[in-house]
């Protein structure tokens, strides 16, 4: 019974496919899985938007949406209908083809990332040998869509927003990759299924998640920071800083194309949360061995929604950074720290079992964190800002 519940979606797919002739079955399995992804994550997107509007309302001492349906629960439906029926404006001077392609490209690329995410036991669409690389290849392609949107609008705010976004995404992609490389070094595989399997081991009923190791904890913090910047979320939401740039690169988008950007942003957040959970939080494995009877997909989606709540919490708490702070933080703090973390992960791998590696690895990371923070603060001279431009 417990196994049945764990594999309920897999069994359901097999049952449906069983009605089809044999030569159609492999195709049908893929089509059903893709359809499931295309239904589940936009559904979660609607829940997240409601959660965000309600949660931010609470944090800012107001009520939030409460007019559509009981407690405003039908608000996402109303939002969707509104964006479908709104007029689709394209500026006269805009580059119509690129303007149209940008949101489509974004949504396509963002959904591609789900192809390799293991959302449950035996629930990966494609188990690739180089799955992590595939995910990052798709993530890197979103930058192009942001640029296309900003450039084709022929609007200075759009272009400035796109330039900011691309610069920020390139800068934070490096620490994002480097913090994941530590996981790959320890696991010895780029396959996300292998990474989950390596963490799905228990000692005294406690899991071997990578976040519970010194290098894993440091890596997870760096990964979360870089992921927040990569998805253009507050406090790194300069590309769409409303007080400066109207809405950044999607200023000139309205109606359903705007909704596509919105969908792309949230689905991207869900997907990078899923990747973070897979890399550091054990993917679909249970947090305690005694809880192993709960279906694996519940744990995966629970972890994803938990990190979405953290995203919302951060947005309600932290003020927006300045452009130079953003860049300094990426290149002078996060990047050196992820590099150090690679060495620590290598030391962890080669020091063998025992308590010594815990002490050494933790000490190196804590000392580096304190020293880098102190030195960085001492060099800071408060006063008028000075800029240096590349020519």
């Amino acid at each position, binding site marked *: 019974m417990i196994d049945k519940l764990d594999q309920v979606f897999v069994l359901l797919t097999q049952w449906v496919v069983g009605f089809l002739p044999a030569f159609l079955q492999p195709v049908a399995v893929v089509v059903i899985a893709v359809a499931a992804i295309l239904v589940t994550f936009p559904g979660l997107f609607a829940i997240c938007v409601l959660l965000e509007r309600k949660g931010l309302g609470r944090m800012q001492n107001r009520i939030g949406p409460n007019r559509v349906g009981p407690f405003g629960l039908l608000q996402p439906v109303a939002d969707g209908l509104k964006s479908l029926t709104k007029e689709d404006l394209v500026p006269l001077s805009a*580059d119509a083809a*690129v303007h149209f392609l940008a949101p489509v490209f974004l949504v396509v690329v963002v959904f591609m990332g789900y192809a390799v995410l293991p959302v449950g036991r035996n629930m990966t669409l494609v188990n*690739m*040998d*180089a799955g992590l*690389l*595939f995910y*990052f*290849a*798709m*993530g*890197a*392609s979103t*930058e*192009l869509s942001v*640029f*296309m949107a900003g*450039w084709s609008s022929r609007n200075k705010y759009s*272009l400035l927003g796109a*330039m900011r976004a*691309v610069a920020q995404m*390139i800068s934070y*992609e490096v620490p994002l990759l480097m913090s994941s490389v530590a996981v790959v070094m320890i696991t*010895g*595989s*780029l396959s996300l299924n292998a990474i989950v399997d390596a963490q799905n081991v228990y000692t005294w009923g406690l899991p071997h998640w990578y976040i519970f190791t010194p290098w894993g904890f440091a890596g997870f913090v760096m990964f979360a920071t870089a992921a927040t910047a990569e998805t253009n979320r507050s406090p790194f939401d300069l590309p769409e800083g409303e007080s400066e740039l109207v809405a950044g690169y999607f200023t000139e988008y309205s109606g359903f194309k705007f909704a596509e950007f919105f969908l792309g942003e949230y689905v991207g957040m869900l997907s990078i949360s899923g990747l973070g959970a897979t890399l550091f939080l054990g993917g679909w494995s249970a947090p305690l061995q005694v809880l192993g009877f709960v279906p694996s997909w519940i744990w995966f989606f629970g972890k994803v929604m938990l990190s979405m709540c953290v995203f919302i919490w951060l947005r309600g708490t932290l003020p927006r950074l300045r452009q130079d702070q953003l860049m300094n933080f990426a290149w002078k703090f996060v990047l050196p720290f992820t590099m150090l973390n690679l060495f620590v992960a290598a030391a962890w791998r080669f020091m063998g079992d025992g308590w010594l590696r815990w002490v050494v690895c933790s000490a190196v990371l804590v000392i580096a964190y304190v020293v880098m923070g102190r030195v960085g603060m001492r060099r800071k001279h408060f006063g008028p800002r000075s800029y*240096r431009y*590349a*020519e």
Partner: protein
Amino acid sequence: MNFAFYLISGLAVAGALAAVLLKNTVHCALALTVAFAGIAMLFLQLGAQFAGFAQILVYIGAVAILVVFAILLTRGSETPRDGVYSKFPLTGLAIAAAVFAVLGWAVLNSASALPGAETTSAAPTVTVMDIGNALMSRYVLPLEIVALLLTAALIGAVIVAMHEKEEAN
């Protein structure tokens, strides 16, 4: 050589042609990314996952972005009034032919240079781990040289781009 191959290569060739023939420079850059994507898909169709994904990650995620950045930051994306076509088509043709000849010569000679060239009938299965082991053992010297060159180029670019700060107070 099946239907997928013709579809993908058609896409790559169309992208490359558009990159050369379009008037607007940014459109050319975007068409070039289509060609890059086509080449990545060809790699994937041949079963070379690592090469294909690295192609997407490096060429679409970084090189294409740098190209459009360079276009926007330097000359502006508007089409120059006197057309985009070169005034010296014969020189360009000669250079293109020379590059093509060198590449073709290298490709044609590569089969005999590989160990075990006689048994090329079965496609080799290369995992990412094999590539990593090869890079870290047999090809470690070229790897290190490339890394050193790239670092030097990076530092050099920063120094060239950043003008000297005046000795202010």
